[in-house]
């Protein structure tokens, strides 16, 4: 089949979504499908830019290319699913969250005035229209599927996808907790830093880059944690796999996250995951005392959980092993069979 995989691109930003779409293209090609990645730059501000950018997708003609029909399109993030196609499959990584659960929070985008309120509703209208056009609608997690149903009334099939391919292994249950994430406020890495401030034995390695790095470094300095918090920046594949292989546990607790691949990556390295009760999607696979520890979103609870794992390394290993069994069930073969059927 000729397949177009559609994904928006915020120039100079690369994260889980970009890794996912690249991998999806690669896996489709590996199964003999002629596949192209179609991207359009995405800028969601100021004002109504978020809508005019969505219109760009609507104007794209993907019915055919260079005289040959495109059999199927797969779209992922907002607003790529606004594209028109007779055989549109939507695999929603997430909607435009500022228009939904992030509205009227510190992470929100829309003010209280009538134009901003109406703009938010227009984004919701776009979702209702564009997602309803899908021949099949998938969501990367139950959390995302439930949000779609609440906001549009549409029922999406839950289909998580495998994490990026790394040389996953487990070398030890070492003396540090690893955070792998983009450094922005919504990822709540400051909570882990605050936990380290409460537990003098807690060492932390923070992998990733992002706009919140300076603030987080400042917080670590303020708390006098310079020796125990290491900002390792963007890690290449080998370095990242090595960090996973050597850590005690992996911290992953964004606010009401869609899903996130980090827990799967941790599990494939046989490491338990530390998360919080309000983390959203991760809670679908991180179960307290089965595949990790789930605490209240408070620094002292998190510090206590990390301390417990340090004192019970055998349990940490067992939790990681249970997670590994779970992650091993999610394969590209299974996903692509469902996506194209």
């Amino acid at each position: 089949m000729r397949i177009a995989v559609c994904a928006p691109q915020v120039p100079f930003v690369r994260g889980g979504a970009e890794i996912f779409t690249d991998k999806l293209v690669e896996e489709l090609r590996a199964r003999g499908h002629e596949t192209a990645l179609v991207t359009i730059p995405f800028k969601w501000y100021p004002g109504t830019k978020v809508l005019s950018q969505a219109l760009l997708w609507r104007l794209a003609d993907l019915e055919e290319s260079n005289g040959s029909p495109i059999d199927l399109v797969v779209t992922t993030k907002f607003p790529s699913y606004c594209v028109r196609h007779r055989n549109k499959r939507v695999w929603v990584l997430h909607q435009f969250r500022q228009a939904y659960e992030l509205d009227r929070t510190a992470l929100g985008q829309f003010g209280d005035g009538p134009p901003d309120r109406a703009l938010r509703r227009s984004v919701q209208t776009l979702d209702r229209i564009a997602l309803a056009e899908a021949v099949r609608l998938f969501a990367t997690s139950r959390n995302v599927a439930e949000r779609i149903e609440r906001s549009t009334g549409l029922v999406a099939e839950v289909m998580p996808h495998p994490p990026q391919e790394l040389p996953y292994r487990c070398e030890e249950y070492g003396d540090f907790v690893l955070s792998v994430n983009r450094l922005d406020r919504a990822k709540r890495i400051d909570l882990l830093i605050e936990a380290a401030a409460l537990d003098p034995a807690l060492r932390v390695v923070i992998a990733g880059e992002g706009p919140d790095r300076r603030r987080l470094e400042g917080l670590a300095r303020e708390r006098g944690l310079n020796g125990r918090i290491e900002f390792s920046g963007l890690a290449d594949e080998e370095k990242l796999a090595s960090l996973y292989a050597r850590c005690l546990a992996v911290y992953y607790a964004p606010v009401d996250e869609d899903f996130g691949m980090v827990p799967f990556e941790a599990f494939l390295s046989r490491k338990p995951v530390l998360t919080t009760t309000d983390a959203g999607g991760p809670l679908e696979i991180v179960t307290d005392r089965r595949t990790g520890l789930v605490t209240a979103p408070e620094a002292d609870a998190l510090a206590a959980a990390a301390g417990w794992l340090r004192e019970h390394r055998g349990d940490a290993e067992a939790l990681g092993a249970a997670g590994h069994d779970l992650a091993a069930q999610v394969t590209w073969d299974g996903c692509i069979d469902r996506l194209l059927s």
Partner: protein
Amino acid sequence: MKIAHYSPMPPEHSGIADYSALLLPALRRRVDVEVIRHGRTRPARDTDLAVYHVGNNPDAHGWIVGALRRRPGVVVLHDFVLHHLVAGLTIGRRDGHGYLDAMEREGGVVGRLLAHGVLDKRIPPLWESRPQEFHLAGEVLALATGLIVHSRHVEERARTAGFEGPIWRIPHPAWPVPELAPERIRGEPLIGSFGNLNSSKRIPQLLEAFGRLRRDRPGARLLLVGAVSPGFDLDRRLQRLGLSGEGILREDYVEEPRLWSLMAACDICINLRAPTMGETSGSVIRQLSLGKPVVVSDVGWFSELSDEVALKIPVGVGEAETLHAALELLARDDGARATMSRAALELARSEHDLDLVAELYAASLEQAAGGEAVAGSVLREVAEAAAEVGIEAGSPEASDLARRLRELELGR
């Protein structure tokens, strides 16, 4: 964002007052609301949008139309036929010319002549004899910047009447069921009818059908709750049909808690109506919340209820016979009643959920207040970009752009 909310409110005895009292707390969790006190028509300051709840009762809604005249806004059209309201606002205020003009606006010269006939008492009042032919919603529609309606029926009638603005169809919210014990009333089955007793509630047809049912089912009882309308001789009808004995139970107007207890006691609830003014029935909503099988007239909003929750009786020839067959079916088939009951509870829980309704309200009001600015901004940006690459108005490319904008409801 803040809205000015014009509606009758409790303690006024009005279905729309009950409706607003139910909706407002949930709406206030989403939007800042200033409830305008009864009678104030001066536009409220520092509000972004005015919302007017309009029904057919001139005493309850006359002042709201007065406010609407001073500041156009979103109208929640609870009834489509507003003839009685307009008659009250004109003839009721000694403004015969106003009534003539309203009738002419809708019915042309013929309408004006008929209005003269009404003013001269040569023909019966049209709001009683022919309300559906002359809805007189024209002025309200002309002043409305958007409409909120509860049914496709009203939406279609508004469009037919020429309304071109946005219309949001939002279901009537369901009340939370109070924790009250059902009234202990015998009846095999117990059939209930709630609301004023008159011809437009099809009480003659109901009595006839019930009389037939009782011949075969002497244990059946009919509970009639509501005031008897002037000119409707209930007692004489009951006597004629031989129903003056213990088969009929009567209650006049009852307060809300007793209303729920009585409804909860019923096995079947009857809600007949013809002609319809386009209204939604708060009684039916309550009955669905209680999981009661309902029997309705096959008109207006009532027709839009799903077949899983309602048996629908066509109005006109054979009406009483069909109603009797429906009652007999429900009386005999416990399974059918149980299935309808489950469907009713599910419908009330899903479609009529109060939070869902409040969310739909908030969405529509936010779009009404700011949608034009958003649409204008998008259109400006697209038009500028199009002009920069040489796309001219009227060209196929411009048409394609317009089509895509429409598909996504971006820009009106």
